[in-house]
């Protein structure tokens, strides 16, 4: 199909961001971010298969502040994608599609993802006995 020099219709950027649109694109962004996290998982498993030294190095990288930052991001991305994925399943079943419900569940998903992330990290630091 030849589109020639026809003018383009206004694209997404002209619209004011709303909770609905922001959460929608976050679902995709966290999905792509988790794909990168999956790479880390493959690397981690293969390091363990390679031997104790390789595994120690990978564990040391993850314990470094930058590794922790990545893990924290992936934790939140996973909880967000998980919670919002469940929200999508309710929509698939035809439930929760009224605008007030969409906003309510949107906020719920956002709050749940933050709370669950903080809970997981508190538990994780608990595992270390507060040693770092």
């Amino acid at each position, binding site marked *: 199909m030849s589109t020639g020099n026809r003018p383009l219709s206004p694209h997404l950027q002209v619209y004011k961001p709303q909770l609905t649109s922001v959460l929608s694109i976050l679902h995709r962004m966290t999905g792509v971010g988790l794909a990168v996290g999956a790479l880390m*998982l493959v690397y981690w*498993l293969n390091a363990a*298969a390679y031997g104790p030294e390789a*595994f120690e190095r990978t564990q040391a990288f993850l314990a470094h502040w930058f590794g922790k930052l990545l893990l924290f991001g992936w*934790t939140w991305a*996973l909880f967000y994608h998980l919670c919002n994925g469940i929200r999508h399943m309710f929509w698939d079943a035809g439930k929760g599609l009224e605008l007030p419900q969409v906003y309510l569940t949107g906020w719920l998903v956002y709050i749940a993802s933050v709370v669950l992330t903080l809970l997981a990290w508190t538990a994780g630091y608990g595992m270390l006995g507060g040693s770092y």
Partner: protein
Amino acid sequence: MSLRTDLGRVRGLGSAKDGTAHWWSQRVTAVALIPLSLWFIYSAVTLVGIDRAGFKVWLNAPGSILLMSLFVIALFYHMQLGLQVVVEDYVHNERNKIFLLVLNKLVAVFFAVSSIIAIIKVAFGG
């Protein structure tokens, strides 16, 4: 009066020529990933700062090998389906699009198989 042919109606594939297979697979893997990813996060928390010997003990525990294998299979299947849509939405050059779609599938299988081999090696190897 509908202008659709009987054959078109029977095939039920619509204009995307794809039917509901992709959509359905994405939901099935998503359902599997709800318990599996919660289990994975719980495990990851209990494994904070572990050494390889401890990791091997954990992987040998009942259920760990099975759930870890199921997790990576569901994860990379779901990842492949999701990234496919991202490529289809944003890559408009036909050659690049097909290249990325094929690469996406092959890489997903590579990572899933590589993960499972690594899991087996750690659990049963030295």
